[in-house]
């Protein structure tokens, strides 16, 4: 009996070890390019490891049963008439409940760190269309922070393109340029159907909903060019609705901005 338990413990440790190894060494995600990304990836890793443990454990239990308890040719009769076991049932109700609760709390914490839990305070100074309710995307900031921020950009989505309006420079661009390591606030509006703004490397996505302007904030951390993908079925060319976000050093960004800025309007 003791022997059997030792084998079981060894086996469970092995499953844990394998899952930890895979979870930490196999990278299934694209590059991390915003402050949200490493936070997201932390959660991903935890979920991946727990998922592997459960999946490997259950699969092994099923396959083992099929081998170990399969009916040999000469056998007749039934298996043991075991109908239940209260302590087992309690264990496998309580342990998963605790795991689920812990995961929930942990992902709440992650979500909070990503800025998702901040309520939007309804101070409409910043927003041009005064009466409309602004909806919360992830990574909220207070209006105060937004107004201090120079980098507010207006995004309009339409079949089948994104347009980026830089109000401070009074120009519109088809490519989103932003400086690295600075918080960007975007106000997003749709001209027709529902679209979605997704940058996989940033781990953020927000639907762009007609009739409901939405604010989305993010801080890019890595210079480079990343795809912006529409992730909500928006018509025949939905698959082609893509744009690019170019994250560059501040000086490069300023050059680009000044080149595009409509100076005459400012005079």
């Amino acid at each position: 009996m003791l022997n059997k338990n030792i084998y079981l413990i060894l086996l469970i440790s092995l499953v844990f070890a394998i899952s930890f190894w895979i979870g930490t060494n196999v990278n299934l995600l694209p590059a991390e390019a915003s402050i949200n990304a490493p936070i997201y990836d932390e959660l991903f890793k935890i979920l991946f490891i727990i998922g592997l443990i459960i999946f490997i454990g259950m699969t092994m239990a099923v396959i083992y049963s099929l081998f170990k308890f399969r009916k040999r040719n000469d056998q007749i009769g039934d298996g043991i008439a075991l109908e239940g076991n209260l302590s087992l049932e309690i264990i496998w109700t309580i342990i998963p409940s605790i795991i689920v609760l812990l995961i929930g709390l942990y992902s709440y914490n992650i979500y909070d760190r990503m800025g998702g839990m901040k309520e939007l305070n309804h101070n409409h100074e910043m927003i041009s269309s005064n009466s409309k309710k602004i909806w919360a995307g992830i990574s909220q900031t207070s209006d105060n922070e937004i107004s201090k921020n120079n980098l507010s950009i207006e995004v309009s989505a339409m079949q089948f393109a994104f347009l980026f309006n830089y109000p401070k420079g009074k120009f519109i661009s088809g490519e989103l340029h932003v400086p690295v390591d600075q918080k960007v606030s975007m106000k997003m509006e749709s001209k027709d159907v529902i679209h979605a703004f997704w940058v996989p490397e940033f781990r953020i996505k927000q639907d762009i909903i007609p009739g409901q302007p939405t604010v989305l904030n993010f801080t890019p951390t890595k210079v480079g060019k990343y795809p912006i993908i529409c992730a909500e079925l928006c018509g025949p060319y939905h698959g082609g609705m893509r744009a690019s976000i170019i994250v560059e050093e501040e000086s490069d960004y300023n050059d680009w901005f000044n080149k595009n800025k409509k100076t005459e309007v400012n005079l």
Partner: protein
Amino acid sequence: MTISIDPQKTNNKSLQPKGWLRYFSFSLDHKVIGIQYLVCGFLFYLIGGTLASAIRIELASPMSDFMPRDVYNQVLTLHGTIMIFLWIVPVVNGAFGNYLIPFYVGARDMAFPRLNAVAFWLIPPSGLMLVASYFVEGAAQAGWTAYPPLSITTPQSGQIIWILSVLLLGGSSIFGGINFIATIIKLRRPGLKLMQLPMYCWAMLGTSLLVVLSTPVLAGTLILLSFDIIANTGFFNPVLGGNVVVYQHLFWFYSHPAVYIMVLPAFGLVSEILPVHARKPLFGYTTMVFSIMGIVVLGLVVWAHHMFTSGTPPWMRLFFTIATAFIAVPTGIKFFNWVATLWGGKISINSAMLFSCGFIINFVFGGITGVALAQVPFDIHVHDTYFVVAHFHYIVYGGTVFIIFSSIYHWFPKVTGKMLNEKFGILHFIITFIGFNLCFAPQHWLGLNGMPRRVAEYDPQFQFINQISSIGALLMAISTIPFLINIFLSVRNGKDAGDNPWNALTPEWLTSSPPPVENWEEEAPLVEEPYGYGKQFSEQK
């Protein structure tokens, strides 16, 4: 209030046609209706599967070259709608429910045989109408979710037919649900206690509650949507002041429970199959019953996890995360109980058993990605990507479809009196299992790395993985060939099954195979222990 139901009075079966012709008649026999559901569903599955193959052919290359982009969206919409409303829901509920429930409660028919027949006969015409709508000018192309404003602004005639046909199919499942509830509650043979019912009855009771509570909401929503399209009202049309997010709430209030309408009956079926072939009692009957009810209750309050990126308020996201993740608990209980049912058994490794075990493995995988998706921060990145496509196909295909096949292998001898060929069956299982995992496992990676769903064209860097996925789909298509051959050969020259080839204890096996018109020549037997393996049987031997 007491309702007295006497199927004998409403049902004059001597006038029904005999032989295979009866499957083409307006029969009131629950067994005939069950088989009608199954065969009709399978025909639509072949159509839906052909469409899926067309989708996967298109996706074998990054450009949109196999069909025009709008046709792709139409094919996609039709595939999703057919698979849900014409294959899974009618088969796991209508087909097996009709065939088995009267046996399980010890009745000679369903509570309302005529309503039952009507429920079935709504399906072929509305299904044909749905398929035909593909050929009208401007077929539906807004996906099976039909989100406005896209569904309002794309061409109209196809979308309207789509709505009408989904409404009729919803009506059919409401009729079915009412009938199941009435049959299980009211037609139970005297002396049969609720806690002695086979697990599939409980699963169908739970499912039917979900059907009756949530399908009318879908109907109402679609009616409002059709007003927006035809009469220019503004319920959901933002141009007229409507709110598109309200549609999403209403839609998912039905369509999330719809997932459980697809998997709960499968849970019930696997609970019937495993004990028979493992020759052990179903482990933890009572907790199994409670977990079904837990899933029903939780299933009704988690719909907004489909809307985490739709601008829902933060508190709502939190609530729906926790509620969704908690469904893993009752679901997990069921899986542990099934494995415990296998443990220490005398397991026959046959096609029914293999498909059921394949189901457990696939569903655990789909369940794990489901718990992950419940976490808002996780969902935000992968919502509306191939990760989600992979997740739900693990549930609906790796779960429910595997169980449909398992059930066919298990109950074929009862229905026809003939055995299915095991060699073909095991071949069918192996190709399906490999094809399925090859097709859908790589899609998780696609979603994580930037491939959105519902696209006809994609970034060329994803081509290789998509090709693997398409090869998997091809294998799945091929896997239906040994299955169909097996069915045709066995119906004609299969080995005689006898009345009870598996030595099973549930009541349907205690009558002849195939069963007589009113199920039992004499009085229905009282089965107090449908899972009494290791007790009665070893004594008899």
